[in-house]
């Protein structure tokens, strides 16, 4: 039998701290559909996705004068060999240097999120598209050989 092609889950919420749990719940619902995904991949993906969501929430108010409330649209997609998170938000442009992000001093209380995200998954992309921020987080299954 062929493998199910693709599973996806979608969520639209205001960019508020209390909605981070809804992102965790959406990820859990994706795992319920794809129980075969290795645990280490799940945890790495979940952590990276939450870091991006944190970043959007933390900076939503500061950067977004003129927008009454920033909205996050999140789509999670699982295929046979990878899981992907696609974020779109209508906040102001993110001042992010993905390539140049480094882990801060060990005694720093802030500033690990982006560097940690990059260390956890295979690919993190940020782009500004019109008046929206687009984030894509991709994690390949570690138990599948690459083509």
């Amino acid at each position, binding site marked *: 039998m062929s493998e199910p092609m693709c599973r996806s889950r979608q969520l639209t919420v205001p960019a508020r701290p209390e909605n981070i749990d809804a992102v965790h719940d959406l990820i859990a619902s994706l795992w319920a559909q794809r129980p075969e995904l290795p645990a280490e991949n799940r945890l790495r993906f979940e952590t990276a996705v939450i870091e991006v969501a944190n970043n959007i929430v933390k900076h939503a108010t500061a950067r977004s004068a003129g927008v009454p409330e920033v909205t996050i649209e999140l789509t999670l997609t699982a295929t046979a060999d990878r899981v992907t998170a696609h974020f779109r938000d209508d906040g102001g442009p993110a001042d992010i240097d993905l390539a140049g992000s480094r882990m801060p001093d060990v005694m720093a*209380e802030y500033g*690990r999120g982006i560097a*940690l995200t990059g260390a956890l998954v295979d690919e993190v992309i940020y782009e500004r598209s019109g008046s929206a921020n687009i984030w894509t987080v991709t994690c390949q299954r570690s138990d599948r050989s690459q083509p």
Partner: protein
Amino acid sequence: MMEFPTRTLDNGVQVIRPVQRLNMVAAPRLSAAVESLITAGHARIVIDLSGIEFIDSSGLGALVSCLKKARQAGGDLRISGPTAHVQTILKLTNLDRVLQPVPTAEIAAAAF
């Protein structure tokens, strides 16, 4: 009222045990709980992470903040019982250099 279960070991060390997720919602609460222990005169603290299934950079920041506050008050802070995934996160962020995890709160407390 304490939001996280806390116990006192024989040598006076306080053990606080957050559970489930240490994220941007729970992290400030943990910092506040540890701060109230320190204010009450308890600056030797173990954070028992055995019930934590998920930690992000907010949670890591709270651990560092708690460590600094305990040291400023003349005490110290240790962590115990992290899952394999939490250990991975500590390693990736180099935090295992300043917060070296041990298996149990009792082992952590014995080293004070």
